[in-house]
Structures are given as C-alpha cells and as structure tokens.
C-alpha cells in the first residue's frame, strides 16, 4: 500500500491518541488492542498516556468503534474515536439520527486498507468521511459493482424456497441481540425489544418471535443501514442478517434513486421523508 506502513499507522495512532488525551478535552480514546490471540483484537478505551501505547493497528482490527460513542450520551468530556471509513459512517449515522453531538466527538480518522473481514471486500469507503485529524493518504475509492449480487441471486428463488431458508435461519437465532447492540443504526434510547411488557417482542427464542425480531429490525434499520457488516460479524449463530437489510437498500435504490447511508450530508433516511413524484403502486 502506498503511503504509511502498518507499523507507521500504529505509531501515528498512538501519537494522536496521546495528543488528544494531553489536550485535556478528551476522556478516552477508543481503538483496538491486542488479545492473547494473534488474529484477534478487541475494542479498547485508552484513558492514560501509557495506555495509548497498547493501541494497535493491524488487519485484525475488525470491531466497529463508532457505537461506543453512545455509551455515555451526556459526557462531561469529548470521546475520541479511532475511525476507519465504516466507523466514520457509523458516527455520521448516529449524528444524523441526533443521537450524538458532534462537539462531543473527536474523530481520529484512519485510512483503512481492508481487514480480515468478509464485508471489507465490497467496501466503498475506505477513507474516513468525517474526522478531526486524518492518518494516512486517502486512497481511491472503488465502487462495488456486486453490491447487490447476493440479493439478486436470492430473489430468483421461489417464494417457498425463500421462506424455508429464512425460517431455518431464524430457528437458529438465540435472541442474544448482538446484531442490535453492534449496529450503529440501532441507536434508539430504548429498543422496542427491551420493552417486552408492551407485547411487541416475546422473549422466547422460537421461530415465531425470531421472525418478528428479524424482520422488524431489518425494516427499522433497512433505510439507515451503512453496510458495515457488524451485525453479521457478531452473530454467534452466523445468520445472514445483511441479506435482509441489503434487500431493503436494493429496493430503495431501485425505487427512489441512488442511496447510500452514513455520508456526511443531511439526507433524511428514505422512510423519514417523501417526494411527491414517488412511484405509486397503490392506485
């Protein structure tokens, strides 16, 4: 890769993290640190200068960092987030949804070279889109011509095949809500699924309740999905969760024009707005 080596980026991250903490405006820097396994890193809050030296940058930095900005919605100090392209889009998502204030964030953008994560192959935004300081030279972005390839293949099946497939997938779900907790679009103050006394979502992990959960979540985040793939990565039962949300995105692109989320513009989510000239099928 042109520009900085992995080790150089890591040094720069530590340097910027220390600088941020030294400024006194930042309470912690969220990045990645090593684990006992070489091929795994974990999210890490560096709160002292010495802890900044534990931050790492390598191809296994796959956890999203953006969502941690929501841990404290009313912080006394800023929180610094080390953000790859997807993390910056996650932050944009939450800023757009008015869950975060920009002035509470200090974003250390890092140009990403793709990680050991399946979703990175189709990444359209390796450069952070929003940042206070940028590490690395911006690279040329690749449009992913196969963005909806998987969806198109799946659409070709018969309705019964599709239903059977999803029913079996939802049978596996264990209701751990990891997809929700990792998703930057799942940023409601209180999730409908936690308000189970209202009867929206039953607690049993059976097919019926899992279908409600799966489709409700897909529909709720479908028009705000930034395609970071965290939901699929975190799922312990390996459900193809993106196959639902991407279907929503595909239809949105087909019906309402080119659409991508998490960009630093003020575009409303598709379902939060309308156009008079929208197609009408209900006449």
């Amino acid at each position, binding site marked *: 890769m042109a520009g900085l080596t992995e080790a150089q980026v890591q040094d720069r991250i530590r340097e910027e993290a220390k600088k941020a903490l030294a400024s006194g405006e930042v309470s*912690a820097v969220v990045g990645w*640190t090593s*684990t*006992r*396994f070489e091929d*795994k*890193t*974990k*999210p*890490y*809050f560096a*709160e*002292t200068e*010495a*802890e900044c*030296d*534990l931050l790492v940058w390598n191809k296994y930095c796959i*956890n999203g960092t953006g*969502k*941690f900005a929501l*841990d404290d919605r009313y912080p006394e100090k800023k929180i610094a987030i080390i953000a790859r392209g997807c993390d910056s889009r996650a932050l944009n998502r939450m800023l757009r949804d008015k869950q975060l204030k920009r002035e509470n964030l200090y974003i250390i953008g890092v140009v990403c070279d793709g990680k050991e994560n399946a979703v990175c192959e189709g990444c359209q935004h390796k450069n952070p889109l929003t940042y206070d300081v940028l590490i690395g030279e911006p690279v040329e972005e690749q449009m992913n011509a196969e963005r909806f390839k*998987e969806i198109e*293949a*799946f659409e*070709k*099946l018969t309705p019964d*095949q599709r239903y*059977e*497939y999803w029913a*079996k*997938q939802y049978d*596996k779900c*264990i*209701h*751990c*809500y*990891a997809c*929700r*907790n*990792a998703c930057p679009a799942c940023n409601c103050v*209180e999730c409908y699924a*936690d308000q*189970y006394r209202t009867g929206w979502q*039953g*607690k*049993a*992990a*059976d097919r019926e309740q899992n279908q409600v959960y799966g489709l409700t979540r897909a529909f709720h985040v479908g028009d705000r999905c930034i395609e970071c793939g965290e939901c699929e*990565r*975190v799922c*312990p*039962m*390996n459900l193809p969760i993106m196959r639902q949300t991407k279907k929503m995105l595909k239809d949105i692109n087909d019906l309402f024009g080119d659409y991508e989320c998490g960009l630093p513009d003020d575009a409303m989510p598709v379902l939060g707005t309308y156009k008079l000239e929208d197609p009408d099928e209900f006449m």
Partner: protein
Amino acid sequence: MTLAKKDLNKALEILSKDAVVFAPTFDMIEDPSEGGQTMGEKKFMPYKEGMFIALDGPNTVKPPKDVLFPNVEKMYRYKTGENAEIVEIFPEDTKKILFGIRPCDARSIEAMDKVFFTKDYVDSYYAKRRENVVIVSMGCVEPERTCFCDSMGLDPNNAPNADVMMNVAKDSVDAFILEAYTDKGKELLEQLKDLDGGAGEAKRDVKCSLQINKDPELDKKLAGMFEHPIWDKITKGCIGCGTCTFVCPTCYCFDIDNENYGAEGCKYRCWDSCMFSDYTRMAGGANPRPTKKERLRNRYMHKLSYFNERYGETLCVGCGRCVANCPSHLDISEFIEKATAADPNAETYTDAPGKEA
C-alpha cells in the same frame, strides 16, 4: 469396552432404538441461491440414520444444556375469565442420551444439578428431564485454542459425573475405549456388547491449549473486589449483548412469561441473560444494575465468586465458548489472570505495564 470408530454409527443406531440420542454434528441449511447446502453450526442433534458424528474438532457453538433446560419450556396452560383453570404441562417422558459431550459440558450439568436440585426447592421440570438423561462423555481429542478447563480444575480427559466415559484408545486412533461409571452407564454398555472389541487402555493425556494463571483462592479475593477499579476498565469494550450467556453451558438464569391465545394461554420459561437491561429492571423503572459495568461484573462474579460461596464450586468450566464467540473478543480467562495479578486494595487500575497503582 472397545468400540471401533467404524462402528460408531452402528452403536448409535442401537442406542436410538429406545432413546433419543443427541450427538454433535453439523447442521445443514439449504441455500439454493448459493448452489446447494451451506454448512451450518456444529450442534447436538437427535441421531438420524447415517448422521455424521463430529466427536473431534471444535466444541459445539451452543452447549448441550438445552436438552435438560430447553430454551423455551412450557410450564402450564391456563384459561382466564369465568372458566379459569391451570393445567400443568410435563416435559416429555422419553429417555435421552447425551452422546459425546465434553468433560467441560458434563461438569456444567453437575453445576446445574446443584442449582435445580438443592437449596430447599427442586425444580420439577429440570428434575423430570434429568432423570431421563444418560451422559456419555467424550474426552477431548484436540482442545481448541480457547480451552482452559484444566486451569479451572477440570480434567479434559475425564468427566467424573458421566454415566459412560469414552476416550480414544491408547494404541489406535480408530477405536474408542468406553467405561461405565454408573448403573445407567452399565446398562447402556450392555446394549452395545455385540460391538465390543475387548478390553483396552484409554488415551488420557490431553492438555488444554490455554494454561492460565489463576489464584486458587480467586473466589475469596474477588469477593473483596466488588468496588475495584478493574471493573471500569475491563467492561468498557462490552457491547451488552447476551451471546456469552447463551453459549455458556452453566448459565441457567431464566425468565417466565406468557403467551395468550384469546382467553387461553400458556406460561413458559425461557433463557434469560443477565446482560440485558430488562433483567433486573423493576416496575417503575429502578434498576440496580443500570449499565454494562454492573451487569458484566455480576456475571463474572457469579461465575467466579458468588457460586463458590453458595454451592462450593466455580461456575466457569473453562469451555472457552464465550471467549470464542464474544463479538468484542472479551476474554474471561484474561480477566481471571488480571484479577489474579491485581492488588485488591488498589485505588486505580490500568492495563499499561509497570503502572499498576
């Protein structure tokens, strides 16, 4: 007795004549859009003819606990209104064999037995299922990199509470040595006597890949560390999902809820997770464990300290499932080491080397 590897399916065939045999296998899911089947998760499934049995390799994602303590257990059905009534629902009365569960999972059943059978009340549903279950435990063949059961006081080669213990033979990788530990086990081996290849010696020299440094008195040490600053640090990366609790073989907490069908309904209990906000929230909104820090602390303390105090053993069996599946790659074994090394009276805590206050 000695059982040749090639006779494994034959053996399960015999056993499944009068019992449901749960064995580790890979679940397949049809995905015609990607050209056929995709390999699903490894899990315990009822034996069907010709099923591939995966005794070696990594452990199942979900523990076998749902055979004894199902994800959803119907408790009773009821009618409301004028004709109100309550009718208890009993678990099915079929014999089940848990075949090839690892010693860590066998130990987890021992822990669940303590919970559901002791301390004044016997849980009828669990008891009913438990008496019908025969445990055939398989000694670890190749431990995963996340396995640390021997550091938690277990032997990956032997499960003392199993009905039958099964190991690879010392002199042949193509044979298993089966030994009955209980009467139930003897009965089971009796059924397989036609396949017996004679006496043999079991290979019992497997060691866990992860050797961790654990204070033997960690439970007592942790009891004094409730307010320790280490909790702030180690819980920061948690995203608050329930993965660790649902893949844990010893997590037994449940919730009770009902489902209505008009004027009838059914009360069921289902797995619950201490990592959810709803778990301890009371009517009116007060919550004694408001953030992930309190929740994760409670989970770790329960596994490593509270349970020792109440039932005299550690609840973590070192199976490594939570280590392998945590979305944030948090690691209870790492916590055990950190807590072992930590100064229980420290005012501050940092991960940075040489800076321990």
